[in-house]
C-alpha cells in the first residue's frame, strides 16, 4: 500500500505520533527546554504542501515548525536532539524548536518572529528564478502573521517580480488566544488580500490532505511555469495550547469554546483521510495502526537517542557567531 494518497495519510500519521509522543515527554519530564508549538490537528497542511514539492524546492516556516520539517523529510533524530538541546540537533542545540533547519532535504529554516520568514522565502525563490531552474519555494505562516506589514510587503514584492513562491497560510483562526475576528475584518479573507496584491490565491479545506495536495500541486506548477507567486489559505485548527504540550480547551482558558474545539477535532485530518481511503483500502485501519506502531517505535528510539547525546561543549559557546576575523 504505497499509493501516493496512502503516503499522504502515512506522513500525517507519522507526524501525529511523533508530536503526541514528544508532547507527553515534554510535559512529563520537562527536559526539552524550548518553547514548542505543536501542529497536532494541523498535519494535513504540512503534508499536503510538502508532498507536492520536489527535493529541489525549499520550504521555510514560522514557529509552528515540526510538521513541515518532518513532512519535507527533515531528519527526525536531529529534530528531537534539537528539542533536547543536544549537539546532535539539527541546529546543534543553538536554535531549538523554533529554529529547525535541514537544508539537505530542502527545509530552509524556521523562525519565531511573526512574518519574518515570508520575505526570506521570496528572496530565496527569486534567487531560484534567476538561476533559471524550475525550483520553487513554499513558506508557511499563520493567520496571525498576515497582520504583520511584512506580509503585505512580501506579497507585493513577489507579485511585481513574479517570484516562484507559494505563500501557505495555515489559518487556524487564532493568534495565541486572540480569535481572528478580533484581529481582521469580517467579510474579507486572506485570499482577498493576496489577490488584491496581484497574487493568485485559493482557499482550501486545510484538514483535507488530498485537497491541499492538489491545490499545492497547482500552485507549484503555476510558479514553475513563471506565472508568479501563489497563496494558499488553508483552514485548519490546532488542538493543543498555542505553545506547549497541553490541551487547553477543557481548562478554563476561555478563549475558545469547548464546542468549537470538539467540532474541529471531529474533523481530524487523519480520520478524514482514512475514511476517504477506506473505500479503496478496506483494511486501512489496520494499516494505520501498523504505521502508528512503527512510528511509535521510531520516535521512542529518537528520544532515547536524543537523551543519550551530549550537550554542546560550553567552551564552544561563541563558535559560529562569526567567521574567524582575518587579522
Amino acid at each position: 500500500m504505497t499509493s501516493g494518497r496512502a503516503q499522504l495519510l502515512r506522513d500525517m500519521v507519522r507526524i501525529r505520533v511523533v508530536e503526541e509522543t514528544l508532547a507527553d515527554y515534554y510535559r512529563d519530564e520537562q527536559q526539552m527546554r524550548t518553547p514548542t508549538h505543536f501542529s497536532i490537528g494541523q498535519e494535513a497542511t504540512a503534508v499536503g504542501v510538502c508532498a507536492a514539492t520536489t527535493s529541489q524546492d525549499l520550504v521555510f516556516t514560522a514557529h509552528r515548525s515540526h510538521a513541515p520539517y518532518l513532512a519535507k523529510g527533515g531528519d527526525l533524530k536531529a529534530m528531537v536532539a534539537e528539542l533536547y538541546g543536544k549537539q546532535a540537533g539539527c541546529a546543534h542545540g543553538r536554535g531549538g524548536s523554533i529554529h529547525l533547519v535541514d537544508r539537505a532535504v530542502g527545509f530552509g529554516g524556521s523562525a519565531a518572529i511573526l512574518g519574518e520568514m515570508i520575505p526570506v522565502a521570496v528572496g530565496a525563490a527569486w534567487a531560484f528564478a534567476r538561476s533559471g531552474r524550475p525550483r520553487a519555494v513554499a513558506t508557511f505562516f499563520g493567520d496571525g502573521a498576515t497582520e504583520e506589514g511584512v506580509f503585505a510587503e512580501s506579497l507585493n514584492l513577489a507579485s511585481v517580480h513574479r517570484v516562484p513562491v507559494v505563500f501557505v497560510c495555515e489559518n487556524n483562526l487564532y493568534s495565541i488566544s486572540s480569535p481572528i475576528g478580533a484581529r481582521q475584518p469580517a467579510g474579507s479573507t486572506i485570499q482577498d488580500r493576496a489577490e488584491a496584491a496581484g497574487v493568485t490565491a485559493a482557499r482550501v479545506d486545510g484538514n483535507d490532505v488530498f485537497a491541499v495536495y492538489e491545490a499545492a500541486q497547482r500552485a507549484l506548477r503555476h510558479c514553475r511555469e513563471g506565472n508568479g507567486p501563489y497563496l494558499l489559505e488553508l483552514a485548519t485548527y490546532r488542538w493543543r495550547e498555542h505553545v506547549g504540550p497541553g490541551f487547553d480547551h477543557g481548562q478554563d482558558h476561555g478563549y475558545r469554546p469547548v464546542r468549537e474545539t470538539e467540532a474541529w477535532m471531529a474533523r481530524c485530518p487523519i480520520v478524514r483521510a482514512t475514511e476517504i481511503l477506506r473505500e479503496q483500502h478496506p483494511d486501512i485501519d489496520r494499516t494505520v495502526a501498523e504505521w502508528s506502531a512503527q512510528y511509535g517505535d521510531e520516535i521512542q528510539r529518537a528520544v532515547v537517542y536524543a537523551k543519550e547525546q551530549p550537550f554542546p561543549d560550553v567552551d564552544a559557546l561563541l563558535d559560529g557567531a562569526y567567521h574567524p576575523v582575518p587579522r
Partner: protein
Amino acid sequence: MRTLTYWQAISEATVQCMEADESIFIAGEGVDDIKGTFGTTKEAYARFGANRVIDVPNSENATAGFAVGAAACGLRPLLVHTRADFMFLALDPLVNLAAKWRYMYGGDKGGVPVVTRGVVGRGWGQGATHSQSPHATFAHYAGLYVAAPASPADAKGLLVQALTGDTPVVLVENRNLYPLTGEVPAGATAIPFGVGRIARRGADVTVVATSLMVHEAERAAVQLAEQGISVEVVDVRSLRPLDDRIICESVARTGRLVVADTSWARYGFTAEVAAVVAEHIPHALTAPIRRLALPDCPAPVSWPLEEAFHPGAGGIVEACLQLCGQAPGDLPALADVAAGFQGPY
C-alpha cells in the same frame, strides 16, 4: 508597608493610574487574555474591560503609530509587548516619531506620552529572538525616557511617573523579576526618571547594574561580604536620563567599578556607565573597570549554553574578587535569580 510581587506592583500602578485618569488605555497583543501579560494587565482588564484594555492585531509598527496618534489627541496609551524583541518592528514610530514629536513640531506644543512596556529576559530556551534586552537601543536616541526597574516599588513608581508625565517612555521588565516580592507603597506615588538608588552600601567595589542584574549584584555582595569584600550596589533605575552623579559618587568612594547588564557589552549599558566614569572621575579608579554582559553571540537555546551565556551573580563575584586582587578560590557556585524560574517556557 505591604509586600507585593513585581507583577502585582505593575498591575496596581496600572489600575490606580487608569482609575485616576480616564485617558489611559492599554493596547497590546493578547493583553486581554487570561494570563494577562504575566498577570500585569489582568486586573485592568477585569476592571475596565475591552474598551480600555485593547487586544490589537499582530502589527507592532502600526500599533505604535496608532498610540502616537492617540497621544497626540490627548489619550495616554500604554503599549505592552510580551517580548521586547518585537519592539524592533516598532522602532521607527518610537524613535523616528514619538521621541522627536515634541521637538520636531516646535518644542512648545504637547508631546506624545506613549508608554511602552517591553518584557525581556530568559525563560527556558527562549533563544536568540525571544530574550533580548534592547534598552540601550532605545536609550541612545534623544527624546525618550528609558527605565528598567529592578524592584516592585520601582516598577510601580516608575510606571506611575511614565503614565503621568509628558515624555514617551520605554520600560523594560525582566520576566524573571515578576515573582519577586518587595515593599510597595499603597498610593500612586511617582518615582522620577534619572534618579538612581543605592541598593546596598559598601566600600570596596561599586557594582552598577540595572534590572535583573541588580539582584544578581546583591547576591554577589552577600557572598563577597563573607570574603571580607564590601560591595556597593547602584541600581540606576533609568537609563535615560542616567544618574551620572550617583554612579560617580559611588565610584569616587570605592575606586573600583563593575558594570552588569543583560545585554551585550558593546555600545550598551556597560559602555555608557564606564564612559560616565571615564568622563568625570577616571583618576578615582584604582583598577580597570570590568563589564559583565552577554558574550558576543546570539542567545543559544541548549541549557548548558544558555547557563554559560547569561551573566549572573557568579560572574560578578569573580569580577569583584579580581578587582580586589583576590583569587577566585573555591566559593560555592551561586544560583542566578533566574534559576528559580519554573518552566516550561
